[in-house]
């Protein structure tokens, strides 16, 4: 694996971000960055964007209409029952179940979306570039081919604060 990639390994967030920005200025995008916790500059700087929040909104929209529709269908259309003379379409009291069940649907569907999109699921074999990236090292993986003739510059940027492995 190490034949095709170089790993820039840093000890803290600040030096990683500094190097990441300098590498980007050279017009080269690291293949992936591994950090022990989310670093916002990196998440914003990398090309991948997420639409999980949008998906969640639509899950909520569909779940809310679906559940409210189901309650109305069951209690008003399919089998109306008298409960102490209350109206069949007890809309305000349907809202309670709608809110809670919508939250449940959003949570579960968003979790599955996350699991599918981020490829985090039971039984997945992790691709580990650096053993300590989940502990205390901040690792930038750069494809050797993408560097072309700029590899000297990139290496010197990394070596300013970090190490190459």
């Amino acid at each position, binding site marked *: 694996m190490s034949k095709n990639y170089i790993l820039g390994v840093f000890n*803290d*967030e*600040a*030096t990683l971000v500094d190097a990441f920005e300098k590498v980007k200025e050279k017009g080269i995008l690291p293949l*992936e*960055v591994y*950090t*022990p*916790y*989310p670093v916002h500059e*990196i*998440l914003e700087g*990398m090309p*991948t964007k*997420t639409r*999980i*929040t949008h998906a*969640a909104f639509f899950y*909520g929209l569909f779940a809310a209409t679906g559940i409210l529709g189901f*309650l109305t269908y*069951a*209690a008003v259309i*399919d*089998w109306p*029952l008298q*409960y102490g003379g*209350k109206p069949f379409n*007890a809309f305000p*009291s349907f809202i*309670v*179940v709608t*809110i*809670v*069940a919508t*939250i*449940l649907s*959003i*949570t*579960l569907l*968003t*979790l599955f979306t*996350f*699991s599918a999109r*981020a*490829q*985090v699921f*039971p*039984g*997945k*074999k*992790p*691709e*580990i*570039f650096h*053993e*300590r*990236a*989940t*502990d*205390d090292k901040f690792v930038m993986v750069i494809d050797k081919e993408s560097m072309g003739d700029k590899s000297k510059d990139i290496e010197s940027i990394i070596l300013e604060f970090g190490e190459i492995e």
Partner: protein
Amino acid sequence: MYNSAVRGRLIDGDKSLSQISQEIIKPIHAKTPLWWYAAMLVSLGMFGFGLYCKYITISTGIGTWGVNNSVAWGWAIINFVWWIGIGHAGTAFSIFLLILRQKWRTAINRAAEAMTVVAVFCASLFPLLHMGRPWLFFYIFPYPNTRGPLWVNFNSPLFWDFVAISAYLLISASFWYFGMVPDFATIRDTAKSKIKKAVYGFFSFGWTGSSKEWLRFEALSFVLGGIAAVLVVSVHSIVSTDFAVSVKPGWHTTIFPPYFVVGAIFSGFAMVLTLVITMRGLYKMNDFITDSHVDAVCRVLIFISLIMGTAYMTEIFMAWYSGSDYETYLFFRTRLFGEYAYQFWIMFVANAVVPQLFWFKKMRRNMWVVFTISIIINIGMWFERFNIVVTSLSRDYLPSGWAPYSPTWVEIGFFIGTLGMFIAGVLLFFRFIPMIAISELKSVAKFDKPNHGKLKATSHE
């Protein structure tokens, strides 16, 4: 921008990131201490006794409980509401303190969430067994069937409650679990033994810490955090409608939903204190859960305690101001100065008076005092539920329907069983799961450093 200097340091002892992981994971890799086995044995004993009482309840029937026609809800519902209340702290900690940008929550939220999951599980057993025929509990699911009325009554608070509790259990468990995935990966990558590597490797779902994962992880936390905030408020409001929607004196009040939500967070935060002080004592987590963390929770408790006091006063005032004979009788002749005065005053003193000691810094910094008060609050909150459930039921409109209530050993054993289950759950949590959210703690570690860990000083912060 928020400045953490107000709170003191978030992590004591100038630790490196790897030290943070090592010290939090230590109990998982270390040899299991003898006290752990002893405590586990005791809690499993309690749990076993609880199982026996459940067996008696199911095989003989609800008649083995002390409940009667008037007081149809006894210890089971008291304990249900009590556990659910405790279960509210986890999500409240994670969500409300996240929204308020309180960085100190990172040291405590994992323990609070673990507590939530176990407590809600304990709570859910009570209504299940109180059904009398728990093997028919699936009747409450809304699905087409051949039992006459085809659907459940969607206007019933008891059905709302069922939906709310199951949703809360599922959501808080998944929220807790996904928060742990990065930490399981840390254990996988630092573990020496092959078995640990394999087991934690499986539970870490192949997490590597890449930016693609973190990006979506953040989005997920944002979505779940946002909607779970609504859930915390709605679940306990729904629990309160079990009471407030009825027409019993002392129950039929609009103050119930907010009063229940605040009470739930109150008891939950008290239980969090009990738990984190235990963690500090047993596992020497003082550098992560510093005195100022405990201090901060105590300050929150003073505030909530004042709200509780206000709620109690409001109830009493409204009972008098309403001019309703039944309300006045219930509050003044049964609760304040009557047959149940004991329980009322224990509740009032424990919840509204004792926590006021936290105004003094000396008290907030003395762990034994804080620990004792946290236990007192939990006892007080139990009596609050006793007050609500039993006084209203045993003294309602018709004197001919009045009845006393005292629990039988089966009910007490059931409760002891859930306590055992809770302690066993917490012990398993101490032993096999990182007690503090490692990755979250690392992300706030930089705020203890000059310039917040940045290379250059920024002009304003």
